[in-house]
């Protein structure tokens, strides 16, 4: 089946969310499952983690016909990944960044590497009062694209160390989201054409670095 996908179009300035599903229409969770996910969501909320992803994961499982136990396993795994992402990225990470971090961890990237990317993005943050201050990241959402790129590259068999090194180099030079997107699709195409994943990653990111350093 040939599919045509037109990617993203230029931004519209207003902030509309995609329509949220009405509760009646959403895939139904059995009452025990619903209660279990809600309990987990309560704890998760107390730790400053986003709860929407938990319900989305449960709904996905329900739509895909998984049984309650399997769904609960997936939701718990997501909770672990989110909390690990928070440990790696720090208190100031946005919900989107945490989800992106969780996907990178899910793809098999080590926590330390995710944290390293987080540190690269936090250089130059605002000064903090020394006593009793908590760590935090300055800008919101800057890590989403780098982390998602990281997850995708690792899923395509780029070694985590090579992927992090390349992406870190881009983050350090302030690469734009569009450049990460281009990197992703170029590397995918190169791998599909038979190039070794690490080689494709290094080559494509090096050319972006060169452009950024001009």
């Amino acid at each position: 089946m040939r599919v045509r996908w037109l990617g993203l179009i230029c931004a519209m300035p207003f902030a509309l969310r995609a329509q949220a599903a009405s509760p009646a229409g959403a895939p139904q969770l059995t009452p025990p499952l619903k209660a279990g996910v809600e309990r987990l969501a309560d704890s998760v909320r107390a730790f400053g983690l986003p709860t929407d992803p938990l319900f989305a994961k449960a709904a996905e499982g329900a739509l895909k016909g998984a049984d309650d136990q399997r769904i609960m396993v997936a939701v718990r795994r997501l909770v672990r990944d989110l909390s690990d992402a928070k440990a790696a990225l720090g208190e100031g990470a946005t919900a989107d960044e945490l989800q992106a971090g969780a996907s990178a961890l899910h793809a098999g990237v080590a926590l330390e590497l995710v944290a390293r990317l987080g540190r690269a993005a936090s250089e130059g943050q605002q000064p903090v009062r020394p006593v009793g201050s908590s760590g935090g990241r300055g800008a919101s959402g800057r890590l989403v694209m780098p982390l998602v790129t990281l997850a995708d590259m690792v899923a395509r068999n780029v070694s985590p160390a090579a992927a992090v090194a390349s992406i870190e180099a881009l983050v350090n030079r302030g690469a734009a989201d569009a450049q990460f997107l281009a990197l992703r699709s170029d590397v995918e195409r190169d791998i599909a054409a038979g190039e070794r994943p690490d080689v494709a990653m290094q080559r494509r990111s090096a050319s972006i670095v060169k452009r950024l350093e001009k």
Partner: protein
Amino acid sequence: MTRPQPDLDETPLVLKQAIAELREGSVVPDEWRAELLAKVPRRRRRPAIVRWAPIAIAAAICLGVGMKVGRTRSESMVGGSASRVRFSIRAPLAARVSLVGDFDRWDPAAVPMRRDGDGETWTVDVHLPPGRHVFAYAVDGDLKTDPNAARAVEDDFGVPSSVIVVATAGGR
């Protein structure tokens, strides 16, 4: 008469030896020091004191304003405005196609797609906030991935999904 209070600070010999060892200064590695000093941002001068000549003050202030403290950060889209994304899938024999994903809680009734004029392609435009979105197409009840999109790394349920990433508006 009160009992003499024990000296909470007395340190027996075993401990004294341990403490002596603990107090040995830590070696400061050259690379650590060099790395730290390289990270220290250039500091803007505080405004000069009045006793300087007016020209010197002006020069100092101009240079202070011109120097960057720390790495320049580009503005990110706080809150993120949504981008319009078009999803398309070719399904000439389908009766009903809809878009499902984390943005609509995987509800097949939430985002129905419309058949194009050619009768074979189904399309829908959706506003999605910046970030990563997992999705699939529900084609007459079966979930299909988008061959032109990346495969989602998560495969918790044995049924694959696709991923798109929406950049922040303006790209930075």
